[in-house]
């Protein structure tokens, strides 16, 4: 595989991954965003404002909950759930949307464009825009519009304009394409709130930093509850925003194992999956050098997953790097496994997880079983499952029995 050179000039690199592969029209906006973010992140007023909204609007901090019945049922390590599902709007996405909306206003931009897959990022962004009185346009693949029609209605209630994308597979990748095209045409007064830890620099860093609150809180909470760091931390990965937010504060703690769970769809062997680390090759998509599902001619392949939020053919650059250096382990769970994980958590804990998060739950069930009762594992419960009830009902054939 060709290695892109990593001269000192190239910014936003995680090892060889990342970069800024965008049309020239967007370069000025990326440089402006980088400078604005640099300045904002050093400004205590910005941090205070963000903290205020995260606390009083989003409802942070979210609990780190000991899943006692799940732990008993599995019979291995103690399992803790980081309850991002309890955030306002039902997932971790709001952490980033609020942060970037504040950043947009700081740059004098009052128009927002965003993409969405499951609709969680779209709802979070529409919410942030309603909160601050910003114009909001959301691109969403037509297949996702179908799968997540309630979220489309939510976004519209919040005053956003939702544009269905007919092209390609009609999923997240195609929504990102359209959002990028829209941004190129409206770059002078519009900010693009990218929802995952991918895209051109500085997006992977900005999204990670706004999601780091997940890991920062988790670290403090587990020290309070257990008096020590966890043995393992687990999160699901589409583009990888909840996972990088959870992992990042633990990266230097070498004894904490990090597990990212990709969506294996119908199974890696079938080719119908969304596991870019397991089944992809290095390449460039949407502005960054990453592992990508692609054919031998470099055409991007469609991802397949029961969960719209993981239905993306690449994984954010920092995850690619953590994989390359062996710091994090990336594994995968199938659609069927995710459904089992969803039922398991619903029945043992009274929490219906999002299908995305259910991938992580299912993996944790396997992982914890092989660990001792004195060991501790934390899983990021990135979102709640209300949005998925219809999909799950269809998949289970009409009833849960």
């Amino acid at each position: 595989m060709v290695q892109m050179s990593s001269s000192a000039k190239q910014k936003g690199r995680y090892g060889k991954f990342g970069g800024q592969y965008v049309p020239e029209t967007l370069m000025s906006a990326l440089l402006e965003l980088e400078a604005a973010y640099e300045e904002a992140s050093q400004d205590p007023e910005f941090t205070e404002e963000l903290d205020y909204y995260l606390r009083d609007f989003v409802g942070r901090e979210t609990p780190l909950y000991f899943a006692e019945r799940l732990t008993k049922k599995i019979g291995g390590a103690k399992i803790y759930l980081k309850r991002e599902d309890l955030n306002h709007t039902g997932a971790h996405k709001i952490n980033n949307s609020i942060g970037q909306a504040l950043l947009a206003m700081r740059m004098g931009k009052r128009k927002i464009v965003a993409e969405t897959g499951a609709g969680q990022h779209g709802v979070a962004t529409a919410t942030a825009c309603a909160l601050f009185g910003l114009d909001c346009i959301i691109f969403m693949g037509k297949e996702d519009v179908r799968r997540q029609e309630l979220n489309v209605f939510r976004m519209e209630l919040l005053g956003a304009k939702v544009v269905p994308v007919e092209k390609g597979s009609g999923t997240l990748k195609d929504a990102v394409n359209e959002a990028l095209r829209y941004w190129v045409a409206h770059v002078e007064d519009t900010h693009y709130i990218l929802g995952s830890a991918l895209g051109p620099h500085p997006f992977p860093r900005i999204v990670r930093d706004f999601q780091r609150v997940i890991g920062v809180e988790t670290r403090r909470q587990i020290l309070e509850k257990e008096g020590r760091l966890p043995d393992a931390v687990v999160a699901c990965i589409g583009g990888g925003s909840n996972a990088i937010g959870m992992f990042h504060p633990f990266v230097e703690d070498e004894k904490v194992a990090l597990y990212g769970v990709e969506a294996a769809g119908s199974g890696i062997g079938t080719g119908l999956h969304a596991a870019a680390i397991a089944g992809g090759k290095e390449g460039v998509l949407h502005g960054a050098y990453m592992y990508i599902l692609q054919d031998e001619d470099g055409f991007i392949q469609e991802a397949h997953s029961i969960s719209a939020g993981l239905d993306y053919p690449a994984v954010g650059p920092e995850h690619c790097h953590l994989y390359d250096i062996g710091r994090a382990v990336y594994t995968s769970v199938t659609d069927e496994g995710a459904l089992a994980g969803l039922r398991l958590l619903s029945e043992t804990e009274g929490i219906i997880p999002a299908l995305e998060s259910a991938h992580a739950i299912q993996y944790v069930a396997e992982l914890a079983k092989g660990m001792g009762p004195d060991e501790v594992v934390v899983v990021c419960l990135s979102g709640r499952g209300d949005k998925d009830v219809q999909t799950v009902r269809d998949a289970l054939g009409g009833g849960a029995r």
Partner: protein
Amino acid sequence: MNQVEKSIRSCVEQGRKAFVPYIMAGDGGLGSLRDKVLFLQEAGATAIEIGIPFSDPVADGETIQQAGERALAEGVTLRAVLQSLQSFKEEVKPEMPLLIMSYLNPILAYGIDAFVQSLRESCVSGLIIPDLPLEESGHIKELLTENGIALIQLVSLTSDQKRMAAIAEQSSGFIYAVTVNGITGAREGFDESLAAHLKSLKSISPVPVLAGFGISTPAHVEQLSIHTDGVIVGSAIVDAFHNGYTARISELIEASKLKMMADH
């Protein structure tokens, strides 16, 4: 001097402006590539830009997206296009530069070294990669320069003076001046500030400056040629070939030859 620059300069020296049509390789079947290239050569194009279809063309508007989808449906790949070009390269005049326009990922999948080698074998003298800004272009540019192939850089309306200067300094072949904020495709008109932008770019560029994006009528061709060394026309050409209106292509090309246009 690279062949791309040489041909544009020679055209301008003869009192005309450069006209670079864009075609989507494999739209209408890869068999039509030779016919289109030879037609454009005969019709008086200064150079020909050959687009490679891609699954995710984020810089392109509807017309070229759809042409790309038609080409992808025909199974067209970068490899197949380069092989096709090689098969009829003797019929392309030496002073008619061929340019390849491809998004980066198909090139990475091909392998950069092998790709540059294939460009040479197919007598391609210029390359445009719309998702490769100056900052990321170092390695590929070096290889291309060693092989006498121009990496054509884009300058946009949002590129400030400092970026314009940096891009101009690194440019080869010509500078592709993007005339609108947005993607490719036909438009009604252009921003008022465009003329000043093009003049300013022209004044600092060591290579010719060609305007592109949204140029779809003979009037646009004349208007945009005033402050530049010529134009690139994409969607209108793609559309004309697709619908069989080849006379329109000749009209567009004629507009670039009509008269000696003032540079200032």
